[in-house]
């Protein structure tokens, strides 16, 4: 058993080395995972600090899934033992806490984080220790780690249908506004490529600092440019402030809608349904989506955390990833439970998530069901368009000649 792990370690080290990661530090350790009938898993979402607004809901969804699994007899008779840490919205603290989970608590997997910055902060530790990090958030793509399970949408899954649909319904002149970090810029890169194909144009491309909350100047600019669509990748507080101020300034979503890739039920709840009504979001999941699995999820969530709570497309992924983990572990013998075996067992697995039946790609991203929703004044989205097939994740969609495969990033 040790020998087998060692060989796996060597193979993984080789793969990591080939992908350009410093794989030389992987140490052969006695993996006492799944000892005494419990499977240790890490839960790493910020409960304090600015990002806690979203991450605490991911924590809740993740814990809900763990509790449900344990209540139903666990995995192959073993209970999941969650180790909860609070990384306080700070990347350096993320790096510190993931060390604890992986090294001290010997977790076989860690579920965690919302922002790209925090994912990148835990990456060196997770890769060197050859552990497995389950990341539920939509993100910018362009990453192909063999130690991360990506549960959220990448740009092609959010935009391929959305942008042409918007262009057809409202027009091809887009005003791009987002927070200033890697995700909005990359989404906008993809959007510009799609617009280019459609013969559309970009009225302006604007980035404001994270946490920015005074959009007076931006709204003046938008009024002057008169775009057909406001293509919005603002997140969190900024999105809430922007939409409230836009609404207060009397913009009509029927003429100039806000099309967001990041706005979910949780932001709409904070800005008020009135302010959001009529605008659009693209996501693989909306709380109002109708399926038996979603009914169960929403009911359990509200029962557990209060009827004023909402579920959204990231908390859904935080929830279904635990079930993906369970499905993967179920295929392993008790002595084989280690991060890499779990990863290998997870590839190709199909599980029923609230959004529909999803599948894990060999590149460790997830095949999802993109949807387009229109916000209503009650704070829920009405799903207008639903993809008729699962859309495959292509994290390097915008980069010709590069693709993420089971062997890591392949160029040329």
């Amino acid at each position, binding site marked *: 058993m040790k020998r087998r792990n060692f060989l796996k370690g060597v193979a993984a080290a080789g793969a990591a080395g080939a992908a350009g990661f410093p794989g030389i530090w992987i140490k052969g350790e006695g993996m006492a995972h799944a000892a005494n009938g419990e499977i240790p898993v890490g839960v790493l979402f910020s409960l304090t600090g*600015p990002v806690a*607004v979203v991450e605490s809901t991911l924590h809740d969804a993740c814990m809900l899934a763990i509790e449900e699994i344990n209540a139903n007899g666990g995995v192959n008779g073993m209970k999941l033992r969650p180790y909860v840490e609070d990384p306080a919205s700070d990347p350096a603290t993320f790096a510190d806490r993931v060390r604890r989970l992986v090294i001290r608590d010997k977790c076989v997997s860690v579920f965690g984080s919302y922002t790209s910055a925090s994912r990148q902060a835990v990456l060196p530790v997770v890769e060197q220790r050859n552990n497995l990090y389950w990341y539920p958030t939509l993100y910018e793509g362009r990453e192909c780690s063999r130690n991360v399970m990506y549960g959220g949408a990448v740009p092609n899954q959010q935009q391929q249908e959305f942008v042409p649909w918007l262009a057809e319904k409202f027009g091809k002149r887009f005003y791009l506004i987002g927070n200033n970090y890697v995700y909005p810029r990359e989404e906008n890169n993809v959007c510009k490529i799609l617009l280019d194909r459609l013969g559309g144009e970009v009225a302006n491309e604007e980035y404001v600092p994270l946490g920015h909350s005074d959009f007076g100047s931006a709204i003046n600019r938008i*009024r002057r440019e008169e775009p057909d669509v406001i293509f919005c990748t603002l997140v969190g507080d900024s999105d809430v402030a922007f939409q409230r101020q836009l609404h207060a300034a009397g913009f009509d979503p029927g003429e100039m809608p806000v099309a967001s890739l990041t706005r979910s039920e*949780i932001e709409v709840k904070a800005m*008020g349904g009135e302010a959001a009504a009529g605008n659009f979001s693209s996501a693989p999941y909306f709380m109002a989506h109708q399926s038996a699995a979603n009914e169960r999820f929403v009911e359990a969530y509200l029962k557990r955390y209060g009827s004023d709570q909402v579920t959204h497309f990231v908390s859904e992924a935080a929830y279904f990833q635990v079930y993906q983990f369970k499905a993967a572990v179920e295929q392993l013998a008790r002595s084989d439970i280690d991060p890499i075996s779990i990863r290998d067992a997870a590839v190709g697995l199909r599980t029923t998530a609230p959004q529909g039946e999803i599948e894990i790609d060999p590149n460790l991203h997830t095949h999802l069901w993109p949807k387009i929703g229109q916000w209503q004044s009650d704070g829920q989205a009405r799903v207008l368009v639903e993809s008729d097939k699962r859309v495959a994740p292509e994290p390097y969609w915008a980069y010709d000649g590069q693709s993420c495969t089971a062997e890591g990033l392949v160029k040329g």
Partner: protein
Amino acid sequence: MDVFFNQAFTGLSTASILLLVALGLAIIYGAMGVINLAHGEFVMLGAYAAWFLQSFLGIGLFLGLPLVFVFVALLGLAIERGLVRWLYHRPLDTILATWGVGIVLQQLVRMIAGPDSRYVERPAMLDGNLRIADVYMSNYRIFLLFFSVAVLVATWYLMTRTEFGTKLRAVIQNREISECYGIRTERVYALTFAYGAGLAGIAGALITPLASVTPGMGTNLVVDAFLVVIVGGVGSLLGTAAASGLVGEATALFSFLLNDTIGRVAVLMAIIVLIRFWPQGLFADRIRR
């Protein structure tokens, strides 16, 4: 030309919010030299109080304002009595203590009201815009502008035309001699701190229709408010108002010419230069301390 006026109004609107937040800070810092890093949390508490009144008791934003003021002022009073008054002789330590207070208040709110952001409804009568030619002014922002000026005037009246204000100014000038004249300086300090905190609470309640209500919302505000207070000059209400106006308009101008980030950097640089050459502020307080 309409661009110019639109931006000018945006600047004024930014300035009015800054003024509302900074006024309480200016009074507390000006009167007792306490650098209150928990001021942002007082703003946040005001916002949460407004949310609580609206969603649990059905009291609207305007009707709730006096209650919000009283609530946050009482809390400020408690913090002054319990903590800050022990630190008047070492003002730099108040930075650390009030930072600790800020952490505690944030966490308490997070534990009681939950970590997610909350929503406060804007009074319906202030929906919509005032439009003059091609200049659009949101009614709510216009209201904020007038309201902040009203608060400024009220505070000025309190400071210069009432017995309390006279006592306060005496204490600021010379605490020992004021005590000789029978002024209970402890009480004056405590009430001043409470008043400053209450103003912060009102500011918090009034910005809720423009921003989201989260436990961490105050952190971003306090740094800007501090810069405004220092630029304006210690203990000068007019200075704080002028500095708010200046910073607001400069932010609007730079962020229009450049972009929001670089605009902010330019304003910060300008502030550094201002403090370097006019450390006493725009409206110097000519009291020997």
